[in-house]
């Protein structure tokens, strides 16, 4: 019971609210946490994407992004943008019953939290997982992060009805700006995930495994340290071919992912997708068309002209 400990002065309160702007969406990280949140701990975990009465044909979508220092402000921007992804997919109808999982990638050689993986969710509860991600801000400085561990987890620790019942791959997006380590190290897997591997696995083998069940994309965004570095893009093009995509405006990340899925599901061709974006007043068409031009061409018989870039200043900036 109490007695009115906190001030109830109207002038004071108005001032306090004015001053307390600039909320942090990475609340877990920003309140000082430096260990993986239990909800995102990959240890002994399996992430499932299951059908339900409400969502009978689930489409799994996993988005894992690099949270090390070289990414600069990118993780924070992603954190503020990604919650729109589900709504975008649902409204546009590009995929049936999308379920989204968020995760984060660090560097197992020097970071405290090298891998964080949330749950597949079909409502905005997935935002909570975004809020629980610890931002490393460190990284090793050798242009390499532990993407291979994330791919290992996706290959061996996920179960989807989409694959088991329908033989359909899910969508995996890795957003980062560095190289993967050449091997999945048995020691790191034992420590972080809990599997007992008899020997290290070559990166190529893990990529083969993960791409068998996951349509895997690497997005290299603007604003990160190594953006535009040919070494990084060449490395991922070598592993994933045209699925290594340069993204020159981070604000377009959700639209890029949504259209990629729409193309993959053959719900749209690139022109239709860009027209959808344009109609919805998205300012992202330029970025998306540039990013996905290769994908779109790869899937279409004819080459089309892109719709005009539309200036949406002051208008709606999302679908």
């Amino acid at each position, binding site marked *: *019971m109490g*007695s009115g400990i*906190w001030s109830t002065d*109207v002038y004071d*309160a108005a001032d306090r*609210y004015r001053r307390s702007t600039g909320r942090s969406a990475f609340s877990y990280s*920003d309140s000082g946490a430096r260990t993986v*949140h*239990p909800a995102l701990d990959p240890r002994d975990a399996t992430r499932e994407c299951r059908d339900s009465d409400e969502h009978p044909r689930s489409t799994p979508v996993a988005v894992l992004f690099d949270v090390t220092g070289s990414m600069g402000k990118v993780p924070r921007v992603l954190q503020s943008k990604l919650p729109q992804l589900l709504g975008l997919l649902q409204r546009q109808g590009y995929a049936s019953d999308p379920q989204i999982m968020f995760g984060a990638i660090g560097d197992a050689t020097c970071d405290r939290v090298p891998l964080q993986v949330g749950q597949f969710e079909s409502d905005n509860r997935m935002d909570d997982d975004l*809020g629980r991600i610890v931002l490393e801000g460190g990284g090793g400085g050798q242009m390499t992060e532990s993407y291979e561990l994330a791919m290992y987890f996706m290959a061996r620790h996920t179960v989807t009805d989409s694959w088991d019942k329908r033989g359909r791959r899910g969508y995996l997006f890795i957003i980062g700006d560095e190289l993967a380590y050449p091997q999945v190290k048995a020691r790191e897997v034992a420590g972080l995930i809990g599997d007992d591997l008899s020997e290290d696995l070559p990166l190529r083998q893990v990529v083969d495994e993960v791409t068998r069940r996951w349509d895997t994309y690497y997005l290299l965004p603007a604003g990160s340290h190594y953006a535009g570095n040919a070494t990084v893009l060449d490395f991922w093009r070598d592993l994933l071919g045209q699925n290594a995509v340069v993204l020159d405006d981070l604000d377009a990340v959700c639209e890029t992912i949504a259209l990629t899925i729409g193309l993959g599901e053959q719900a749209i061709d690139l022109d239709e997708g860009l027209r959808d974006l344009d109609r919805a007043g998205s300012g992202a068409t330029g970025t998306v068309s540039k990013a996905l031009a290769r994908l779109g061409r790869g899937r279409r018989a004819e080459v089309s002209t892109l719709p005009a870039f539309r200036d949406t200043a002051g208008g709606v900036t999302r679908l």
Partner: protein
Amino acid sequence: MRHVAVVDLGYGDAGKGTVVDWLCATRPVHTVVRFNGGAQAAHNVVLRDGRHHTFAQFGAGTFHPGVRTHLSQHMVVDPLALAAEADHLATVGVPDALDRLTVDGDALLATPYHRAANRAREIARGADRHGSCGLGVGETVQYGLAHPGDAPRVADCHHPALLRRRLTTVRDRLTAELGPLEAPPVEDCLPAFTGFADRVAIVDGSWLAGALRTGTCVFEGAQGVLLDEWHGFHPYTTWSTTTFANVDSLLAEAGRPGDVTRIGVLRVVTTRHGHGPLVTEDPSLPFTDRHNATNPWQGRFRFGHFDAVAHRYALAAAGGVDGLALTHLDLAGPDLRICRRYDTTDRLTPGPPGDLDRQAAITARLLRSRPVYDEPPADWAEAVRAELGTPVVLTSHGPTADDKIPHGPLLAPPALVRSA
């Protein structure tokens, strides 16, 4: 997923805050849900490093990174006190409390006019004070019941014109009844309320259903069952349902009826802050409470021996619990005794909600009753278990989470792993 509800089986101050903090320290908790009362709550949490915060509207799990607070529609929300509380949390190392807060748009809004009216009424009662905290929580509830169509609610803060109209109506009605009130002009109040709406996530009832699906939620009660609006000792009660009733209705609305472990909190020293019956009160008990100072609204903090009669009554009024948390065991000593019966009776029986005459009669009887004491028990947890017929599943031996000991599997910390 089993959620946990924490309710005080006394007159408040038994240690709900420290129990909620311990729950959040020992398992992944998604959200602490407040389901009654308002800014007058004062749940003290002390950390091992000495940091301390008196939680009023924020959930007592807020020191734990990522744990959210949800103020449900049963709360009376005071955005003014909330801003000050958030500021204090920032000074003790929690800069993001407002970011982790959601508020139900249907919750009633406490305003400076309600507060001023509350104080005016309590002053007018003179020596017959009810022990109000002077924050207008009861006044707000009362006004909401009398004028459900135009009582200011949290969601109104998004609509300045509507809010202005409703604040003006509150002011005019209360002034007509009580005379001039000591409160600022409506125009001056608006920036505080709209600033609150700009800063805090205001949600609808479906938010809680999502949270309950996503992770473990802890329902944190305020005050105590012996102060309940219907089961407390009238008129020394609060305008609030302090039992599990609101928890039950929130869970039912979210489609998860009964999905909760019910914990009743008891303190080995039965205390009361404010006026009203406290049969076992003993001013010679050598206790002070550093978090409950004498204040002009409730007077001094009152201490008594463990009142098993009153707590048995609270347990029945609350409809039973799955386990008890017994706090302040570090205070148990040779001076502290247990009262199993009064000279007039050994059992109080709860009546149907709403019969305030009956409750007033119980109050009159309690004010005449004298406690009968037994010797201090050697094992307090066992004595309380035997007397209340309910297992003691947590004991607290000091202010911090480290000072808690779980007993049995009910609240045993689960492995900190959440697999899909």
